[in-house]
């Protein structure tokens, strides 16, 4: 067990901190005010890409697992998943919405990295190693009739010669309206349940792929959350993620691939809540330090105790996320730990923001509206990437047994 930041992780955190202060928070605030995502042709994205960000940033090819680990040069190195968690927390600290809109494979990367054939990895992840233009990828599982219970997805996949034909509708897919490709989960047989699941890479411009709308959300408005339809959308057999061999011989392989993706991404999404909680904490801490007079001893002491309680949630929550990621780095199954982190962190963030708002009071909250924005932003984290209830169910099945907890 080691808890000392190495040089490369420290530098990565400091890089995203600079980016966050200068760009993510102002852009996030602006997107919130305008009630629309940061447009894909925004100069900020161009600047990032020219600087090589898509190769190494927190939503990048590197974070998706698409790059080999380089030698650290300073002894032991923090694993990729842990580093990604710590860097992602810093990004979410500045603005979670703007963080999610950063170019890169995003949530589309992990399934390609874990399930894809070498050719698919080269083809779909390799394109991000560019400094020419911003690119995004996306992940699409949720449907109008299948949210938490992803085994019920109805999007059909039918083999036709050397193509697959996809028909159905997906929703709540981040960045999918601007994505170069989307990992779409479909079923070859709805009656087969999880055993029928397959994952396909659907490329932008494929006939039959139609963006239906970009959702109008309560918060985290900087990134787009889109619905799209697949109307006899034909993709080549080469776009079946992992190829036929991946699904042959073992039950539930496609569904398992989706769950493995969630186990890799949930610690990252959970730590976004920690970053948001830390932002709220720092807002309230600065208020107490600078604006609560020392002669208001009772008020000040009470505020200090409440700040300490917020910190407790932040630090314990972060450690849960780091631990779930450390298991990924160690190659150890982490389904329970990832769900635990995702279960724990969003509620502590919500409580942190509510406590910070209490400390600031109405005038303090409304002065720059940042904390008011966090009140709305944070709720998404208890829903996306598996709701609070889904996480409890996962943990319960691990602890009690899947024969008892259905």
């Amino acid at each position, binding site marked *: 067990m080691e808890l000392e930041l190495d040089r490369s992780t420290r530098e990565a955190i400091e890089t995203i901190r600079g980016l966050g202060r200068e760009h993510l928070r102002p852009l996030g605030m602006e997107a919130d005010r305008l009630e629309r995502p940061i447009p894909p042709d925004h100069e900020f994205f161009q600047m990032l890409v020219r600087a090589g960000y898509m190769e190494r940033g927190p939503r990048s090819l590197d974070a998706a697992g698409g790059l080999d680990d380089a030698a650290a040069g300073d002894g032991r190195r923090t694993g990729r998943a842990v580093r990604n968690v710590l860097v992602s927390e810093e990004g979410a600290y500045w603005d979670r919405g703007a963080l999610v809109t950063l170019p890169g494979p995003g949530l589309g990367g992990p399934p390609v990295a874990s399930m894809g054939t070498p050719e698919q990895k080269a083809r779909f992840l390799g394109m991000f190693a560019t400094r020419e233009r911003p690119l995004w990828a996306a992940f699409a599982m949720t449907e109008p009739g299948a949210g938490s219970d992803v085994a019920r997805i109805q999007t059909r996949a039918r083999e036709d010669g050397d193509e697959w034909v996809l028909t159905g509708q997906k929703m709540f897919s981040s960045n999918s309206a601007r994505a170069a490709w989307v990992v779409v989960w479909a079923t070859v047989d709805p009656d087969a349940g999880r055993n029928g699941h397959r994952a396909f890479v659907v490329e932008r411009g494929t006939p039959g792929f139609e963006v239906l709308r970009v959702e109008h959300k309560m918060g985290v408005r900087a990134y787009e959350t889109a619905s799209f339809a697949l109307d006899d959308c034909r993709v080549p057999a080469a776009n079946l993620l992992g190829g036929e061999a991946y699904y042959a011989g073992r039950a539930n392989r496609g569904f398992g691939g989706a769950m493995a993706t969630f186990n890799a991404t949930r610690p990252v999404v959970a730590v976004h809540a920690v970053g948001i909680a830390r932002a709220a904490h720092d807002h309230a801490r600065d208020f107490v330090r600078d604006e609560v007079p020392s002669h208001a001893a009772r008020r000040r002491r009470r505020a200090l105790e409440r700040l*300490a309680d917020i910190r407790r949630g932040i630090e314990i929550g972060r450690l849960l996320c780091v631990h779930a990621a450390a298991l990924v780095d160690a190659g150890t199954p982490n389904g329970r730990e990832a769900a*635990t982190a995702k279960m724990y962190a969003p509620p502590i963030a919500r409580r942190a923001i509510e406590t910070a708002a209490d400390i600031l009071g109405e005038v303090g909250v409304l002065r720059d509206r940042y904390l008011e924005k966090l009140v709305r932003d944070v709720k998404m984290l208890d829903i996306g990437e598996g709701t609070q209830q889904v996480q409890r169910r996962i943990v319960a099945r691990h602890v009690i047994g899947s024969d008892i907890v259905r």
Partner: protein
Amino acid sequence: MAIDTNLAEEVAELEVHARAAARDVLASGAEGAERAHAWSEPMARAFAELGTRGLWVPADCGGDDDLVAAVVAVEAFATGDAGGLLGADRPGPAAGVLRVLPDRGRARALAEAALDGGTMLATALIDAVDDVAAGFRVPWAPGVEVPHALVVAATDGVAVVDGGGLAAEPASASALWASGGVALQVVDGDAIARHPLDADDALVARAVPRLWAGAVLCGVGQAAVDYAVAYGRERIVFGLPVLGHQANAFDVAWATATLEAARTGLRAAACHLAAGRAADGGWLATLAWLEARDAGLRATDLGVQMLGGHGYIHDHPAQRWYREARMLVLLFGGADAALDDLADRALDAPDPLVA
């Protein structure tokens, strides 16, 4: 330098052995030990044979100085029986003062005597080191006999009080009887030694007892959850196993998650302290102790609740874990002292993983 929360292989092995001893020896003897106000000879031997006492003790005091392993082991033991740990785990919580006592010769002498197994060290947390002179009462201090010495961790320093100035009184506590069931009254407050310390070192002296008590709370809580799960898988209610009802299953999930949260925090705090990062470790240990407090209370409440009336009677251990948790949270100043320590640092507390 790296961030890695996975346990070292030898620590993971120690956990397996300690859990086996807890299951095979301690758990079966716990009820009898509570009645006898002492661990049985096989229980004491099982604890001693694992050789974990030295894990708490600094290397220059003759110990193994592995706080992460110490926290892991004490939690594992507590899943079997926490009732006797306060008496048996010497120096255990006292090791916080031993880590920072400026008189290293005295620290070594106290540690060696404790590691020999014959000398007990009690631990108290008070506000100011000069308050030792006023006398105070230490609840649930271990052992029927008066300890050799009492180590005191204050917010501004540490002190050592000679055992001759202590009186043991029967305590009407509701749990931890296997540790002796006495309280200590400091009747003659003349300390052998009083040492002022800077705030960070003083917090280390207070943090180690919190690590110890937090780990014991996690063990007790985990035992309660494990027992409730075993019961709730079999007992049928409204046509389903108790835990087949989502309301109950979700409660178990949350109790498990909060125990895991506390456990992770305690181990991380131990890691910081072991690496000599006093400010980081002291701060995080105090946060994690509060987390363990809440998690232990919640888990042991659930432990009774899932069994219903059966949880309330002595046919099942759930009632003992419930009582033990509610005593453990009062040790070493309880939540209020922890919150005071945290509030004092709330504006400039360290955040070691944020660069």
